[in-house]
């Protein structure tokens, strides 16, 4: 009673005005504090380094401000266009190849009664912890100048786009597989049963139930594979040879040849 009495009449909201404010609970305060901490951390770890990097891009070798001159120069080098197309095409082809392979693999693991499924799942997922250059190095051992299986490439060289795409596919496969396994195993079993009761052929069940159900999983796998490959430095550095991509270009620009 005392609290309502103490409120002056003028602060009482007019009828119909939506001015009810819920008091903040202890959880709300904890969440807000957490948010402030995270934002400050991000500012220190991401925004500040980015700023110092970008501010350098506006200066010349001696530290004088030159505006956008550096950018102008860089975008005029013909090599840049090649790097962009290289990066995009490598990422695109890797995404397509990995999507197809990982989907078949995940399908076999989740929707068939294939024996040793647990074993196959483990074997495919273990390399998820390996750095990308490991895949590239192993390919060099097999297909490099001294490689045992060099002849399998029919004279083509592993140092270049073929090697980059092969190594990238090998490296991102576990990531793609993990998402696709989840996407396929969360499918509603009732849908399959309903389709079966309606005497649906297996291929039609695949197109009308399995694929639409995994739609979002497939999309996000595609995006993840694409970004992983386009941002990767290890694979093109180790096995790319003279094949330039954006990630190696950045390295050259900053560290030098």
């Amino acid at each position, binding site marked *: 009673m005392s609290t309502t009495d103490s409120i002056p009449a003028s602060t009482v909201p007019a009828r119909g005005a939506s001015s009810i404010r819920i008091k903040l609970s202890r959880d709300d305060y904890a969440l807000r504090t957490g948010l402030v901490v995270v934002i400050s951390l991000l500012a220190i770890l991401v925004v500040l380094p980015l700023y110092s990097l970008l501010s350098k891009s506006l200066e010349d070798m001696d530290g004088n401000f030159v505006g956008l001159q550096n950018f102008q120069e860089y975008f005029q080098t013909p090599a840049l266009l090649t790097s962009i197309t290289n990066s995009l095409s490598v990422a695109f082809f890797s995404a397509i190849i990995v999507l197809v392979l990982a989907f078949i693999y995940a399908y076999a693991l989740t929707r068939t009664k294939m024996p040793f499924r647990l074993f196959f799942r483990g074997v495919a997922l273990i390399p998820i912890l390996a750095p990308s250059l490991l895949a590239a190095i192993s390919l060099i051992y097999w297909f490099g100048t001294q490689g045992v299986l060099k002849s399998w490439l029919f004279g083509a060289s592993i140092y270049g786009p073929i090697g980059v795409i092969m190594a990238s596919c090998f490296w991102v496969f576990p990531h793609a597989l993990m998402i696709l396994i989840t996407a396929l195993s969360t499918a509603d079993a*009732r*849908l399959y*049963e*309903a*389709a079966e009761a*309606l005497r*649906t052929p297996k291929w039609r069940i695949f197109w*009308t139930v399995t694929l*639409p159900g995994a739609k979002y999983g497939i999309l996000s796998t595609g995006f993840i594979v694409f970004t992983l490959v386009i941002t990767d430095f290890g694979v093109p550095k180790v096995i790319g040879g003279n094949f330039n991509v954006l990630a190696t270009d950045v390295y050259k620009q900053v560290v030098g040849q």
Partner: protein
Amino acid sequence: MPESKQNFLRIDNLTKHFGEFVAVQELSLEINDGEFICFLGPSGCGKTTLLRAIAGLDPQSSGSITQAGKDISNLPPSQRDFGIVFQSYALFPNLTVFQNVAYGLENQKIPKPEIREQVNDLLELVGMPEQTGKYPAQLSGGQQQRVALARALATSPGLLLLDEPLSALDARVRATLRLEIRSLHERLGVTTILVTHDQEEALSMADRIVVMNEGRIEQVGTPEEIYSAPASPFVADFIGVMNFLQGEITNSGKVLIGENKLDCETANIPEGSKVRVTVRPEDILCSAEDKNAANSFSVKVESVEFLGSFCRLILSAPDGFGKLMTDLSTQQVHELNVTPETTLTAVFPARSLKVFPESL
């Protein structure tokens, strides 16, 4: 092979276990052509397992199933003749209402114009003629279940299996759909099996009810039989509300409860056996004056629960009876001026009492 119209589906000694757990145990059942059957029981009693065995979705561990004179025990679902509706609707979310209903017909390679005609007829039949272009997510639960029903009926199956189709819907929609499924069954005459844990649903819809408990059949009978002549204490307790009295048979036709004797039909239960006597709340007759009739006792009202058209009274009866429930119409409650602490005379008519040996 003799195919009688009387015996459409026969289940012989069907057992299903999941590892150690026995879900259905040596169950045998015969279902007539065109019947509406309900499998009724508490959750985990094996009713859905039995339905899924009939569909072939979870094949039985042993035993056989014969449909229309043909042994279907080993057939995959796609070679059996049934339509199924699930509690979760299970409509294809990426297909429209029309495409969902047409799905099964397209598998049969029926020409397009014919499919269109049939789908429209089916949607009309389930009361959804206007919504052909919508996707399942745009429909309410009740509407989705209508579409699921149309989809299951599209291929004109000989057997319609309904797995708790109304359990996910709210009370009002449930009541309407209950009537509509029943009238659909009367029009189409398709043999129908409905699985439910809702006794009201079973009582109002079924021609015959199969009451199940712990993987076995407790009783098979018409709703009337199940309610008024339960075959076991389980059925008596599960269907409707029931009072249980613990007693002992004294001489024939009498049961000693506490220090009072009750006249009732004791059948062939030997003298001295422990028994349970059951009586429905609405069968206990309450009045204000002492009637001096057989089986009449003085009881005290403990509480009155108002339930609309009737009131449920909790009575404390003489020793040994424990607490009893009885229903009085609201009007009667007013006439007798019933409040807690009121003393009434309760009569237990002998024909309404049923005696079960304690061992059952």
